[in-house]
C-alpha cells in the first residue's frame, strides 16, 4: 500500500461552494435521452426540469406558477395561454406558441413512438393522431400568434394546467430537431434549451454539468450558478461515502445506510414519493384469486401496519389503506382527508371464514399452492416471505414465491403468469385519475385484468365531468369499490430517505415536475 502515500494531495473540493454558487451531486444512472418528446425516466425528468421550461412550472411552494405562459384561462372545452414575449431559447431566439404546437404534434406523431403520448389524449383528436388515423395537423392545438396558444379538449380535462408542467409538454424547436435528426439531444451540443440552466458538459457514463442560462428570462432569480454531476453510480453505499467525504451534497439512504447516517449524527431528510405499493390479484379465467371471498380473506389476513413497522421497518414508509395515497389532492385539501377511507381491520377468524366460503363457492376442499410474483430487491423478498408466512400460518395455504428480475417480472405480469403479484404505481400527472383509471377494464396497466362494470362506470362519470365535486364523489365510489371488492390490496406508500448538506437550502423534492429541483435553491455561507 506504500504507493498510496506517494500520491500528492489534491485540493479539498466541496460538495457545496458558496463562492462559486456551485453544487456537486451524483447521478444513479445516465439519462437515456434528453429529448423531451420521448423521455420517460425520472433522471431525464430531473435534468429537463432544469434545462427547460413549460407553459406552467412548479413554483418554490410546490404550486403551479407561470412559466413561459404569463397568464391563462381554463374552460370546460379548452384552454387559452398568453405567452410572455421575453422568453428566449439558449441561442437567443424567442420561445413562441409555434414551438409548443410543433412539440405536441411531434410527440403524438406515431413515427415518434413516444411512450407518453397518451398523456395528450384529453386534447381533441390526440388519440386518432397517435394511432395514425388523422394527420398531426388535426390535433386540437393551434398558435393564434407567436404569443397566443389555444387548446381544444376532446374530453373534459380540469387538470390540464398541471399537465403543461410535464416534460412531454415542453416546447421543441423544429429547426433544431431537423438539424440533428435522430441524434437530437444525444450530446451537450445537440440541443437548444429555454430553461434556467444550460447543459455545458455531457461525458457519457461519467459526467454531466449544468450552468446558469443567461438567456433565461428570469435568470436573476436563479441562485445556484452550477450543478455539477461528475459521478454516475447506482450504488447507494458509494454515494453515501462520497457524501461523507464532502464530495456531493445529497445521497439516498437504504436501511443499512440509515443506521450508519444516524450513528454519524447526520440529519435525515424524508419525502413522500407519491407512489403506492400493492398486492395485485389475477382475475383471469380459472384463477382462485378471481374469487371475491378469497380476496376478502387475504384482506383480513394482511395488516399493512405490521408490514410497514415490523417487516420493512424503514421510517418514511407508511401503511396504505386506499388506492389513493395521502398525497393525492382533493377539492381543497388532501383527497384522503376529505373522503376518509373505510378501513378493514385484520381479523384471522374472519379470514378463515372467508376461506371456507371461497372453498365452498369454488367447490374445492383444499386451496392449491398459489404463486406470488415478486421483484428481486431485498425489500421485495422480505415482503414476499412475510406473506408466505401469513398464508401458511393463518390460512394453511402454501404461497410459492416467484422472484424475478425487473424485465422478466414485467413480462410475466403482462402475460398473466401469476396468482398474486407485488406491484407499484407512481403517478404520471397531478390528478387523482392517474391512480383511479388503473383498474378500468380498458387500461393496459391493469395486469390482473380486473373487470368491474361498476368501477368502469364511475371512471366514465369522472372522465366526462368538469365539476370537481362530481369527479371526487365518483372517486370516493372507486375508493369504496377497492376496499369492498379488493381488486388490489394496498400495502404501503413509499417514502425516500436521504441526507443533504446543511448549507444547501431550498431544494424541492417533487412528486411532479422534476425531482429534486434546484431552481429555487441557494447555498448558505
Amino acid at each position, binding site marked *: 500500500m506504500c504507493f498510496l502515500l506517494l500520491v500528492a494531495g489534491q*485540493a479539498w473540493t466541496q460538495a457545496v461552494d458558496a463562492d462559486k454558487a456551485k453544487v456537486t451531486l451524483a447521478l444513479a444512472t445516465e439519462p437515456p435521452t434528453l429529448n423531451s418528446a420521448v423521455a420517460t425516466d425520472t433522471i431525464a425528468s430531473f435534468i429537463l426540469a432544469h434545462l427547460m421550461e413549460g407553459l406552467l412550472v412548479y413554483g418554490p411552494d410546490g404550486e403551479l406558477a407561470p412559466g413561459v405562459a404569463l397568464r391563462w384561462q381554463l374552460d370546460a372545452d379548452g384552454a387559452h395561454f398568453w405567452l410572455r414575449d421575453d422568453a428566449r431559447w439558449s441561442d437567443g431566439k424567442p420561445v413562441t406558441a409555434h414551438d409548443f404546437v410543433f412539440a405536441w404534434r411531434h410527440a403524438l406523431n406515431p413515427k415518434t413512438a413516444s411512450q407518453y403520448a397518451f398523456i395528450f389524449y384529453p386534447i381533441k383528436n390526440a388519440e386518432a393522431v397517435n394511432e395514425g388515423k388523422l394527420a398531426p395537423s388535426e390535433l386540437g392545438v393551434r398558435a393564434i400568434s407567436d404569443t397566443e396558444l389555444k387548446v381544444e379538449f376532446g374530453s373534459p380535462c380540469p387538470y390540464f394546467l398541471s399537465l403543461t408542467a410535464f416534460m412531454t409538454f415542453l416546447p421543441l424547436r423544429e429547426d433544431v430537431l431537423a438539424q440533428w435528426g435522430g441524434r437530437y439531444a444525444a450530446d451537450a451540443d445537440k440541443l437548444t434549451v429555454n430553461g434556467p440552466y444550460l447543459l455545458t458538459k455531457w461525458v457519457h*457514463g461519467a459526467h454531466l454539468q449544468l450552468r446558469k442560462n443567461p438567456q433565461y428570462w428570469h435568470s436573476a432569480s436563479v441562485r445556484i450558478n452550477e450543478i455539477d454531476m461528475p459521478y454516475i453510480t447506482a450504488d447507494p453505499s458509494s454515494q453515501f461515502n462520497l457524501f461523507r467525504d464532502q464530495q456531493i451534497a445529497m445521497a439516498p439512504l437504504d436501511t443499512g445506510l440509515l443506521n450508519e447516517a444516524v450513528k454519524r449524527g447526520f440529519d435525515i431528510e424524508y419525502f413522500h414519493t407519491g407512489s403506492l405499493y400493492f398486492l395485485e390479484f389475477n382475475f383471469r379465467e380459472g384463477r382462485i384469486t378471481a374469487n371475491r371471498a378469497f380476496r376478502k380473506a387475504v384482506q383480513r389476513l394482511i395488516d399493512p401496519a405490521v408490514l410497514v413497522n415490523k417487516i420493512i421497518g424503514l421510517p418514511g414508509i407508511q401503511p396504505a389503506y386506499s388506492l389513493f395515497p395521502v398525497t393525492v389532492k382533493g377539492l381543497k385539501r388532501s383527497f384522503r382527508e376529505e373522503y376518509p377511507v373505510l378501513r378493514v381491520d385484520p381479523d384471522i377468524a374472519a379470514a378463515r371464514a372467508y376461506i371456507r366460503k371461497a372453498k365452498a363457492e369454488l367447490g374445492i376442499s383444499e386451496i392449491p399452492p398459489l404463486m406470488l410474483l415478486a421483484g428481486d430487491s431485498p425489500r421485495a423478498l422480505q415482503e414476499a416471505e412475510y406473506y408466505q408466512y401469513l398464508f401458511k400460518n393463518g390460512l394453511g395455504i402454501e404461497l410459492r414465491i416467484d422472484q424475478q428480475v425487473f424485465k422478466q417480472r414485467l413480462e410475466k405480469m403482462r402475460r398473466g403468469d401469476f396468482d398474486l403479484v407485488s406491484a407499484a404505481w407512481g403517478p404520471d400527472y397531478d390528478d387523482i385519475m392517474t391512480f383511479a383509471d388503473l383498474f378500468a377494464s380498458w387500461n393496459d396497466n391493469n395486469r390482473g385484468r380486473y373487470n368491474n362494470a361498476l368501477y368502469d362506470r364511475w371512471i366514465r362519470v369522472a372522465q366526462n365531468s368538469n365539476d370537481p365535486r362530481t369527479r371526487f364523489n365518483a372517486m370516493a365510489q372507486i375508493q369504496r369499490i377497492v376496499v369492498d371488492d379488493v381488486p388490489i390490496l394496498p400495502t404501503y406508500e413509499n417514502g425516500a430517505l436521504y441526507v443533504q448538506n446543511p448549507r444547501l437550502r431550498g431544494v424541492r423534492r417533487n412528486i411532479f415536475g422534476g425531482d429534486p429541483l434546484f431552481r429555487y435553491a441557494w447555498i448558505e455561507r
Partner: protein
Amino acid sequence: MLKFIAKRLLSGAITIWFIATATFFAMHAVPGDPLTQEKAMSPAVRAQLEARYGLDKPLIEQYQLFLGNMLQGDFGISFTQENRKVNDIISKHFPISAILGLAAVLIALVGGVAAGTVAAYYRNRWPDRLVMIGVIAAISVPGFVIAGLAQLIIVAMNNAAGKTLLPVAGWGSVNHIWVPALVLGLGTMAYLSRIMRASMLEVLNADFNTAAKAKGVHGLRLFWHHQLRNAVLPVVTELGPTIAGVTTGGFVVELIFAIPGLGRYFVQAVQQLDYTVIMGTTVFYGAFLVLVVVLVDISYGLIDPRIRLHGGGGR
C-alpha cells in the same frame, strides 16, 4: 509460422461465431424484450418501436440481419441509450476498462512477485505466514466487500487529513486509478504471489543457484540475474489470460467507484435486455479474449522452441 497463425485465427473466428450465435438465441429465449417497460405501451406505439428495431421480423431473419451487420462491424443502436451506437459505446468505454485493467495487472504483477519472493525467502517463518494469510483473504473476500472497505478507508483518511488525499470515486485523473486498480488486481496479485512463491522455492533449491553462489555471485546480482529471472517465468505465462480476465471483469469495481468503463454497460445491458448492446459487448469481449489467447499461443512459440509452430505431430 504463418500457417500456424492462420489456423489459430480461423479457429478464433469460429469461436466468435459460436459465441455470437449462442448469445443471440439465449438472449431471445429470455422472457420479455428491450421494449418491456414498467408502464404498459399502447399497441400502436409498440408496433412502431418493433418496426424501428426490426423486432417485428421472424427470429431467423433477425439473426441473418445481425450476422450480416456484424460482418460489417456494425452492431446497431442501443435500445436504452436511444441516441448511441453500440460501436460508439464500445470505443468510448472500453479504453477506460483497459486502462483500469492494465493498471490492475501492473499492480498485481509487481505486488505478487514481491510478496511471493519474500514468502519464499522466509519460508515457514512469519513473513511467509503473513503473505499467505493475505493471499487467502484476498482470494476469498469478494471484490465488492474489498471495494466498499477501500472507500471507507479513503473517507477516513481524507476526513483525518482535512483534504482530499485520494478521491472516493469518479474518473478523470491519475489519482482516480490507483485504488480501484488495486482492488481489481488484488485477487490476481494473491494468485500470482502463490505461483511466485512456489517457483522461487524451486529456484532457491536448484543446482544452478547453488553453483552461482559457489562461484561467488551474491547480493542483488544473484537475486536479479539468477533467481528472479528464472522464477518469474511461470508468472509471465499466466499474464495473458490474466490481462484479458482483469480487463473485462471489472463490473463491480466500476459500479462502486463510478468509473464509466464498458463492464458496467455490459451488465446493465443484460439486466435491461438491451439486445444490441448485449450482442456488441459479448462479441467484442469474446473477440478480445480469443485474440489474447491467440497472441499468447504465438508468443509461446516464439519464446519456447519446444512448442512446434508448424502443424501436425504431437506436442
